[in-house]
């Protein structure tokens, strides 16, 4: 078998050295009655060609965004990743390396994570960032739990503009970790008043900017109110490229910024693996979850990097750890940092401007259709339309025409009547004028 180097000759010699007659004797501590005597009921081994054929057949049953005009967002975005990124992350020294517990021989990983931490801090305009979490949703849930620890309070207020998945993950933790998450109703018009809900029991307020329905808001006043009440402001960002064009949460006074980093370097991949970003202020440093890379010197006085402040983590603090996270999202963080390095300041700014411009053009084109209203006044690359009829069947009809025309809000809000006619659309640098025209024409026909 191509992945197993041992030959039968090897095995015999090894058993002889060990001093047992067979492999089965090495399993002697396993109770006889639970030892399987033959292979389980699954197919036997296959060569590469057969495996490729089987998996390709499954892939062929899907309509990928590479083959159809796509306007999908709702927390994951279709962007072009430069060819160099995928080549670099597949270098064996990155792909097949491990968590850098032995820094002398993992300076590559440590240096890129240090750069990643710096980039995230710069993008969000915060003091310090960690070396990644699983995704934006879990990162945000960890931020809420951190706010509870810092304020010693247990009530989180969640904006109605927070991605439903993020809200649901927080709710799961709230139930089991024993805190309260007050979830506001969905807010497609962007009109909620969170300030009025803050009181002395509030540990944090969680908003998303741009919001789930696309709204851009200035949360500076909210931040000030939170701080006066002794609460923290958490801002989640699902489209990280927005920070190339929009005022960063740090500037608005956020205490913790969480984000989904998928848009940079990482393919859509049907939902994962993605990469969660987590940034905060210096004063909260020791309450942060996740790995942290710090700079130091070696025995020869040369600059190097190490994992640091490990006493917060599970392998040392065990039940008193700030989080149970161990494996995070290293390779996805690498893809993120390489893509951002290639973009640089000028590239990211221009990319963000292109995204916004495409979305503005898309919005103008579609709101020209009869009965179609734009519910988002200020947005980055994603906005919400109110259609004259339910959006889910419209999206299905668009799919029949080979167009992936946005996400119906009812997919994430199945019980809310106010969501039924709402369609959430994103436009990125990958959308051509022809794509936009195709969508407009198809939509016009379907809405007749």
């Amino acid at each position, binding site marked *: 078998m191509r992945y197993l180097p041992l030959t039968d000759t090897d095995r015999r010699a090894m058993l002889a050295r060990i001093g047992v007659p067979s492999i089965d004797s090495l399993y002697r501590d396993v109770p006889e009655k639970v030892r399987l005597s033959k292979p389980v009921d699954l197919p036997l081994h296959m060569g590469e060609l057969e495996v490729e054929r089987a998996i390709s057949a499954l892939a062929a049953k899907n309509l990928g965004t590479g083959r159809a005009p796509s306007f999908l967002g709702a927390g994951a975005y279709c962007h072009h990743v430069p060819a160099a990124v995928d080549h670099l992350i597949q270098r064996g020294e990155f792909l097949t390396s491990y968590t850098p517990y032995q820094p002398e021989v993992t300076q590559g990983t440590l240096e890129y994570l240090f750069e990643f931490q710096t980039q995230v801090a710069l993008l969000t305009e915060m003091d310090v960032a960690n070396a990644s979490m699983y995704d934006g949703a879990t990162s945000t849930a960890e931020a809420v739990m951190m706010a509870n620890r810092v304020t010693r309070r247990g009530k989180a207020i969640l904006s109605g503009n927070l991605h439903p998945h993020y809200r649901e993950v927080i709710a799961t933790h709230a139930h089991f970790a024993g805190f309260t998450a007050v979830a506001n109703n969905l807010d497609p018009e962007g009109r909620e008043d969170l300030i009025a809900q803050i009181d002395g029991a509030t540990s944090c307020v969680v908003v998303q900017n741009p919001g789930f329905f696309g709204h851009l808001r200035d949360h500076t006043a909210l931040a000030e109110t939170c701080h006066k009440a002794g609460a923290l402001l958490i801002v989640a960002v699902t489209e990280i490229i927005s920070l190339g064009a929009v005022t960063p949460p740090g500037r608005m006074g956020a205490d913790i910024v969480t984000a989904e980093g998928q848009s940079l370097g990482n393919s859509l991949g049907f939902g994962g693996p993605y990469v969660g970003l987590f940034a905060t202020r210096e004063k909260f440093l*020791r309450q942060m979850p996740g790995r942290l890379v710090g700079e130091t010197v070696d025995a020869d006085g040369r600059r190097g990097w190490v994992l640091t402040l*490990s*006493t917060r983590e599970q392998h*040392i*603090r065990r039940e*008193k750890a700030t989080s149970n996270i161990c494996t995070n999202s290293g390779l996805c963080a690498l893809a993120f940092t390489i893509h951002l390095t290639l973009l640089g300041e000028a590239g990211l700014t221009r990319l963000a401007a292109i995204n916004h411009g495409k979305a503005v053009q898309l919005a103008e084109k579609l709101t020209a259709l009869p009965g179609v209203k734009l519910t988002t006044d200020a947005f980055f690359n994603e906005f919400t339309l109110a259609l004259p009829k339910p959006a889910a069947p419209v999206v299905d009809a668009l799919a029949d025409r080979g167009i992936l025309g946005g996400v119906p809000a009812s997919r994430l809000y199945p019980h809310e009547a106010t969501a039924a006619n709402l369609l959430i659309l994103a436009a990125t640098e990958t959308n051509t004028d022809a794509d936009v025209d195709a969508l407009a024409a198809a939509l016009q026909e379907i809405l007749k």
Partner: protein
Amino acid sequence: MSNVKFTEDHEWIRIEGDTGTIGITDYAQEQLGDVVYVELPDVGRKVEKGKDMAVVESVKAASEVYAPVSGSVTAINDKLTAEPATVNSAAMGDGWFVKIKLSNPSELDKLMDEVAYKKYVEGLG
């Protein structure tokens, strides 16, 4: 040093009237290795004999520091925030953690004196 008492968890307390200064012993700092961070309670916090009072961290470990006796925190050693290494260099003096006002001085009777503590440490081997 007759006004200094010790616990089995290697905390010391130096008594002056009804206040006590608390730290960890030289043996403890040696076991810990280089101290990198100390987490101290807020002034005013009530502490209970034998319960968590502070945390002392080295690179590879975090150890709870327990209150030798009950009381309330009247002062904390800010110097340790900037210079945690003081715990290593002067564990019995400048490396003190907190001062407390004792709420139940009779608890001191259960603690070891210096001679008893020395013997206890020798027995740990």
